[in-house]
């Protein structure tokens, strides 16, 4: 994953628990670089080790951390200068979600090693949609829930997300029902 993701993990920990705790997490995860470079790709394993170490040190289950990270990601990227790009990606919550694939496609030009997930959004009614989530990375469903809820906050909405179909062993698709509350 790109350094921007690891920096967001760092920001989440530091803003809630301080530098000292982050240094311990970094040390336990074996992150040797003094700082992450946003545009530099890092092995996925490093990010997973950071999350694992954070889970142990903060005594928080990994799914809870991933959920928190998903929400934080929206706040963090907006703060890091991507707010206008987010604003330009949709004028409503569902429009944004529907445009996510297009946004990721365009981002792949700037981030050539990006391996983004794919989202297919079918709106059921004004407040409900069925979202198919495809990713080569397993276990990140709680993060998707956090991302959707963090995105909802950008639009001043409270979002409920329910996993209605979990991926199987040969399938890489999870299906969520997304509702504006």
């Amino acid at each position, binding site marked *: 994953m790109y*350094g*921007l993701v690891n920096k967001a993990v760092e920001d989440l920990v530091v803003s809630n628990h301080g530098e000292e705790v982050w240094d311990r997490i970094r040390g336990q995860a074996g992150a040797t670089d003094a*700082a992450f*470079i*946003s*545009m530099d790709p890092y092995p996925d394993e490093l990010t997973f080790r950071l999350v694992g170490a954070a889970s142990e040190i903060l005594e928080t289950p990994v799914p809870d951390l991933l959920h928190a990270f998903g929400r934080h990601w929206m706040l963090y990227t907006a703060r*890091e*200068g*991507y707010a*206008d*790009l987010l*604003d*330009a*990606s*949709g*004028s409503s919550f569902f*429009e944004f979600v529907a*445009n996510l694939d*297009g*946004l990721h496609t*365009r*981002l792949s*030009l*700037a*981030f050539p090693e990006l391996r983004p997930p794919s989202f297919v959004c079918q709106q059921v009614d004004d407040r409900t949609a069925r979202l198919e989530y495809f990713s080569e990375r397993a276990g990140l469903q709680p993060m998707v829930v956090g991302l959707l809820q963090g995105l909802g906050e950008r639009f001043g909405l409270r979002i409920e997300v329910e996993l209605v179909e979990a991926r199987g062993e040969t399938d890489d698709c999870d299906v969520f029902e997304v509702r504006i509350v």
Partner: protein
Amino acid sequence: MDDRSGFTLSPQHLAEAFPFHLVVDRDLRIASVGASIAKVCGAVRPGAVWMDVARIVRPRLRNVDFEILQALCGRGLVIALENERLSLRGHFVYEAEPDRLVLLASPFVASSAELARTGLHVSDFALHDAVPDLLIANRVRDTSLSDAKRLAKRLVEKGEALEVARSAAEAASAAKSRFLARMSHELRTPMNGILGMAEVLLAEGGLDARQEDSVRVMCGSSGALLEIINDLLDYARIEAGFLELESRPMSPAEVLLDVVSCFRHDAESRGLQLEVEIEPAVPRCLVGDPKRLRQVMVNLLGNALKFTHCGSVRARLGFRSEGERARLSFSVVDTGVGIDEGARDRIFEPFVQADEETTRQFGGTGLGLSISRQLVELMGGELRCAANPEGRGSCFAFEIDVKQVECTAQACPGPKAVLETRRFAGRVLIAEDNAINRKVAERLLQHFGCEVHSVENGRYAVEAVLREPWDLVLMDYHMPELDGVQATTCIRGAASERSGVPIVAMTASVRDEDRQSCFEAGMNGFLGKPVNRQHLADVLAQWLRPRVGP
């Protein structure tokens, strides 16, 4: 639109492929508008007059009519719509049937913030339009710049923190050096009284055996205390990087034999064999620092004897020459208590001994080996410790760089004659503010047969020198009114035939910089306190005549 292959783009496909297109008819009215323009520029609608809603920013035009716009076909344009609400970049194409111009364009925006201000979204662009990709690339560039700035700032902060820490460390080091210099001075001054008077008592004789024994204990204890002070000062100097080695002709064999002679009595009295082996290859003369070489040898031999209860201590001096490089080797092997392998590195650390039992049983500051190791390193070598290869005990060894020199009597003087029993004729002026030290110096000089007069500060010393003739002035450093350096400067600068009188510093300020400032002021010699009788005799022999008769 029809190209040469007969391909036609329907109005619907045109609208999809170019959501930012405009069609202008010969009357310069807008015929149709792309959906994305219509989304944000309500006034740009079919029927609107071109001149009311659009302005060509580049190229600059004086007038606008259909022919002028037609002449621009294929040329890049920047066009502002609806009072700059949206800027477009594109070009006109002419459609002969039905005689109209079609503007094919994209928003002319440089950042996602600018795009957001227009009210457009990424989805308003055609999929093949690279403008959103450019905006993302610009955003990414800004992220990289932010990273670079953040890292640079962090570097500066770290650099500043390091600078603060360095300044604090330097200030602490300077304070420590000042403290050590002051303590050294304060300790040496009373020790001069103890050691000096004890030596005078011994030299003058007349003591019964018990009294002489007591005075010798005083001398020995004072000497031991002086060694500790010297060790502390040496350590501080080495640590601060102030210690500089001398480079002068010396005979390493004589240095070793001199050191061994100092320990011979102690070794024999304890039934230990003290053996010396000097390889024939060792040159008689080499260039090095005999004082510091002697210091290391004293430390290693002293330790070996201290920790050996039976058996022997063997000192060995060797030499090898490889091209222009000459190496002097020295080793001390003993049959003493030995040092555990795990403790062999530790014993070179300052204030550390092999174990607490060693400290209790044998005493010492734990500085000697640390100083020796650093002195050997300064001399281009490494001091190593190993087990005695022949069995019980230890072996300390080093090799140092030396320079070879042609051996002449002048280059390599032999051992000095013992002068303690000699007497000297001459008038000596002592400038010394401390009454005890004045008395010690007077007694020592009188013992050597000198005519002595004392003054209490530098000003009186200047007056006395200019008033009457002296053969030698012994000048303290720190004195009221004028200190020794200031007084010497006054004397040397005076228009008097007596301004060239020999002046030798006699001071407890023994740092290299103190010594240097004495010589810079014009002094001819330097004697550290506590004053050693032998060294004082050397100075007197240099400046006074030998006394013949009583």
